[in-house]
């Protein structure tokens, strides 16, 4: 039975989540150097187009279509066949099936876009397109099926993931780690200065991400109800404390509170609360967010010591923040908040933490290995990185024949 309020809410939430990817483009775009701003934005922009096509043709079917052994959906919903305007029997019983499909599609779009921050300023555009098509098909769709698909094996295990901590953030973080291990560092890494060229652009992107995340998390209630309100509140609370957490950590450690720190912290908090949003109380969200800010700041610090060129800290923020969020769900989840969820360690159920841990490990191993394999093959066939000369001239001119600014 279609409910008007639920349908309106999920459609608006879908639009909010869609808006996050252009927001991400600005968030990333401001952090690169002037010569790469368009190429960085273009990667997210193109992913909106490319993944939408894949999603409609086979991505949705592989993710949510009729189950094959708990591992993947079959292709019987190819081209959205049988995905109509009445509710699906398996998902979101109060909204049109197509509303659920497009809401999920926006998640499928932003996830690979997150990875692009890891190899910013050096990836070949043509290879990026092939990588995204393969990643979306071979990594995202199966994983989404395991966690959210009807019959998916991780869901059957009892792993809690409200809005995509594993599917979106751990998967993009682990894939980013694989990517920076294969794609060599930017020329001059560690010697030259890679100073963000436009932090106001990054801060604009942060604002859009924070705004869109209400659709991401509250929308994941798939109904206009109390659970949506709980997720909405938790989302905001965690972003707030994480922003403060990162800012103070940096202030104490480096002597100055920075805008990029406050913005990065907010995003880290949004990442961390994603799996927990519909399962924890606001006070738990305060703690999850605050610790996320400090933890992710520490992770970004560690990167410099390890020497990985994860250009825009996808591993440090999405990988570490997502992992913390998934484990925190196993600590703070409470059936008082959500009767369909489970209790975590702090509410007398230590087993949940183990299940969460297992889902983190499985997600990391699967996405890391698959990404490594895809990129290895593409490196042999197409090459991953632009030539040294192109890198020096910048990707805007060499990949797109445009310049972001004419002074």
């Amino acid at each position, binding site marked *: 039975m279609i409910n008007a309020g639920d349908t309106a809410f999920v459609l608006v939430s879908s639009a909010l989540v869609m808006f996050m990817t252009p927001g991400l483009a600005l968030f990333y775009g401001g952090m690169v150097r002037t010569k790469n701003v368009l190429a960085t934005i273009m990667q997210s922009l193109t992913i909106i187009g490319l993944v939408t096509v894949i999603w409609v043709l086979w991505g949705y079917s592989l993710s949510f279509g009729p189950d094959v052994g708990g591992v993947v959906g079959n292709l019987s919903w190819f081209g959205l066949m049988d995905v109509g305007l009445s509710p699906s029997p398996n998902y979101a019983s109060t909204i049109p099936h197509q509303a659920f499909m497009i809401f999920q599609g926006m998640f499928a779009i932003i996830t690979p876009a997150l990875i692009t921050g890891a190899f910013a300023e050096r990836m070949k555009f043509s290879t990026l397109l092939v990588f995204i098509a393969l990643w979306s098909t071979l990594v995202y769709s199966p994983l989404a099926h395991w966690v959210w698909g009807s019959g998916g094996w991780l869901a059957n295990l009892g792993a809690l993931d409200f809005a995509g901590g594993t599917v979106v953030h751990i998967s993009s973080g682990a894939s980013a780690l694989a990517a920076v291990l294969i794609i060599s560092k930017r020329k001059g890494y560690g010697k030259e*200065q890679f100073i963000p060229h436009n932090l106001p652009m990054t801060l604009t992107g942060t604002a859009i991400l924070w705004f869109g995340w209400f659709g991401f998390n509250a929308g994941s209630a798939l109904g206009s109800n109390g659970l949506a309100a709980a997720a909405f509140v938790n989302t905001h609370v965690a972003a707030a404390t994480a922003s403060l957490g990162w800012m103070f950590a*940096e202030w104490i*450690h*480096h002597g100055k509170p*920075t805008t*990029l*720190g406050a913005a990065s912290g907010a995003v880290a908090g949004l990442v961390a609360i994603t799996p927990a949003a519909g399962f924890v109380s606001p006070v738990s969200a305060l703690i999850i967010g605050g610790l996320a800010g400090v933890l992710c700041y520490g992770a*970004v610090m560690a990167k*410099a010591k390890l020497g990985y060129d994860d250009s825009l800290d996808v591993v440090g923020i999405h990988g570490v923040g997502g992992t913390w969020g998934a484990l925190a769900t196993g600590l703070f989840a409470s059936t008082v908040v959500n009767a369909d969820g489970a209790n975590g360690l702090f509410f007398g159920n230590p087993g949940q933490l183990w299940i969460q841990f297992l889902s983190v490990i499985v997600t990391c191993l699967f996405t890391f290995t698959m990404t490594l394999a895809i990129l290895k093959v593409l490196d042999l066939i197409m090459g991953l990185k632009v030539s040294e000369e192109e890198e020096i001239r910048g990707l805007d001119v060499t990949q797109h024949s445009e310049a972001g600014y004419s002074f």
Partner: protein
Amino acid sequence: MRKIEAIIKPFKLDEVKEGLMEIDVKGMTVTEVKGFGRQKGHTEIYRGAEYRVDFVPKIKLEVVVPAELVAKVVEVIEQRAKTGQIGDGKIFVSSLEEVVRIRTGEKGKEAI
């Protein structure tokens, strides 16, 4: 004729310009430049990574005057650009061979 080049703090430009106009300096050229002397640069921090920024933004002011006006010009720049803090800049004076006004072809002092 002399050319006076002064490197000064950007926010002092207006005061220096007004001072020079008061003593009847007819024109000047101003350029935004970067450099360092004893002041050195500063540190910027992005996601915890510290970057040394060695070159500090400054203004380079160029004025050409008859030799007899040099002492006065140098005095005005020195007074007006001074904050007493490190990084106030420097004044360079050099002699100048020739000046030509392009529109009329006048040369030497007449062309200043």
